[in-house]
């Protein structure tokens, strides 16, 4: 008897939580297919008259600059991810495979840096980015995404330990230098860690709002998140267009999630616990 009660309670709680999670998103999806009149006249739960009315999407994509936003996001992501991988792997290689003066100190420096919440230091970071002449260029974001990513270094460091040293040693006997070992042995063997970093970092960059908001006021350089934020201005009252823009933002992440579920979970559990 009690077993049946707890089991029922379990499923009821899961269903309630799922409704709470999905309902706000679902209503946005409904709204994105409605015409302006329809949006104002019908209640949020009313299904749209036509599921093929893509006009809001077209407006959001072109006039709202969502299309351009995706291009900009991708450029920043591509550059930052290559940098992050090389930097993270190089740091992990040096710290794991060598014993040298100051190794402890460098490790502790990275460790301490994880405790500094990025949002707090922007007041001062801004001055540095400005002095480097990077303000209002994509480079500001690329450099910041590359240079402040300690988590990736840790993920690489964790994984580096599982790459047998005998591989390095064998290559050394062949006469390979450290650079060659790094590029031909370490990097290829880091593939799983690289995949984790690409996923976590990719989602992080795609969702980042604060940095582009601060450093990239130029509307032609806007990534997806600030392009979406800009809808609050001119389209402030046209909720059907805003809804379409929101759905456009969610689709790529949803597709990615459905295909890479397992890796995403693993990435966030390993990334979060380090």
């Amino acid at each position, binding site marked *: 008897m009690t077993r049946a009660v707890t089991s029922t309670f379990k499923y009821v709680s899961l269903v309630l*939580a799922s409704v709470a999670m999905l*309902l*706000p*998103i679902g*209503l*946005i999806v409904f709204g994105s297919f409605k015409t302006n009149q329809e949006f104002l006249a019908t209640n949020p*739960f009313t299904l749209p008259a036509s599921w093929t009315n893509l006009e809001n999407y077209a407006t959001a994509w072109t006039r709202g600059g969502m299309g351009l936003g995706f291009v900009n996001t991708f450029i920043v992501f591509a550059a930052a991810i290559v940098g992050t991988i090389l*930097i*993270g792997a*190089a740091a992990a290689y*040096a*710290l*794991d*495979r*060598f*014993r040298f003066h100051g190794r402890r100190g*460098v490790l502790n*420096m990275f*460790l301490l*840096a994880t*405790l*500094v*919440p990025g*949002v*707090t*230091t922007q*007041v*001062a*970071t*801004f*001055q*540095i980015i400005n002095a480097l002449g990077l303000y209002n260029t994509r480079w500001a974001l690329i450099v*910041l995404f*590359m*240079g402040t990513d*300690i988590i990736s*270094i840790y993920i690489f460091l964790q994984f580096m330990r599982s790459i047998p*040293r005998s591989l390095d*040693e064998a290559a050394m*006997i062949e006469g390979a*230098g450290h650079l060659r070992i*790094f590029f031909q042995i370490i990097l290829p063997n880091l593939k799983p860690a690289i995949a984790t970093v690409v996923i976590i970092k990719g*989602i992080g960059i*795609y*969702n980042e*709002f*604060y940095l582009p908001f601060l450093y990239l006021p130029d509307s032609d350089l806007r990534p*997806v*998140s*600030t392009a*979406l934020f800009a*809808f609050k201005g001119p389209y402030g009252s046209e909720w059907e267009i*805003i809804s379409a*823009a929101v759905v456009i*933002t969610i689709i790529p*992440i949803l597709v990615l*999630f459905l295909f890479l579920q397992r890796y995403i*979970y693993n990435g*966030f559990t390993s990334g979060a*616990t380090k």
Partner: protein
Amino acid sequence: MTTAPSPLRSGTAARQAPGAGAARGTTPGGTGRGPWLRRLTPYLFLLVPVALLLVLTYLPVANMFWYSVTDWDGLDKVKNFVGPDNYVEVFTEPDNLRVFYVSLYYFVASFVQMALALYFATILSFKVRLKNLWKGILFFPYLINGVAIGLIFLNFLKPGGGLDTVLLAAGLDALVQQWTGDPEIANYSLAAVSVWRYMGLNFVMFLGAIQSIDGQIYEAAELDGANRWHQFRHIIAPSIKPILGLSFILAISGSLSVFEIPYVMTGGGNGTETFVIRTVWMAFNRGMVGLASAMAVILLIIVLLVTWVQRRVVPDEEVDLT
């Protein structure tokens, strides 16, 4: 903190290699540069990572401390030293103190969030139908862009929006509120949105910790007649302690650094201004870089203190970094 991998192995490998290379008559390229370059190698690999770390993390922190005792406006060539004036102003100006008070809403909400996450992680680590579906639904909101979440909930909470419609349909007319417009309520609404957004991350972290427990322990416990509650209390709870500690730190630093959701939903109006919203406004709209830096320094010190206390109270064997 660390496991000590045998320093001998890497050392001997490094020392042997040139010898081995020479013995096999390879070109002197690898050997001519000799031990000197070999000793320099790790530093060369660390050059860029450490330079970026210094320029983008440590230099800003150091500058921030320096700005915080000046009256700098962000543009002027001169920075006048004003001593602790900025700090005094942070703690005496009510508008500045309010932001600490606002973060309490998010802080309290993060406990609700952890409790929910723990509950769902526990039930989903036992036998449940459609496990992956539930897991996906609970986690997915965490992946959504913060601006999109802000807009989703503006739509959901606006007068006559989704929430009001549900309440009216349920005959709860009296409960309908100006969810984001009423200063009495706005912070509760925003904190609830924050819970909606981040619960999934906590949930997946807890789930990972619970699933790393060996299944045989449960079986043994069942044989000893332990019910689900006993299992939770004596098997699950101790094993997720480190993750709970980490979540606690994240809860504090997270509740102090809330930005996106209130900024998108209310712009910091209706008494919802948070620490970061105020700091940004001070530094970049009002040219009070000195004062904004003092705020940021205080925030940083709080986070570091909490982390330090947490590490002392819950010694963490899990973190192992080299």
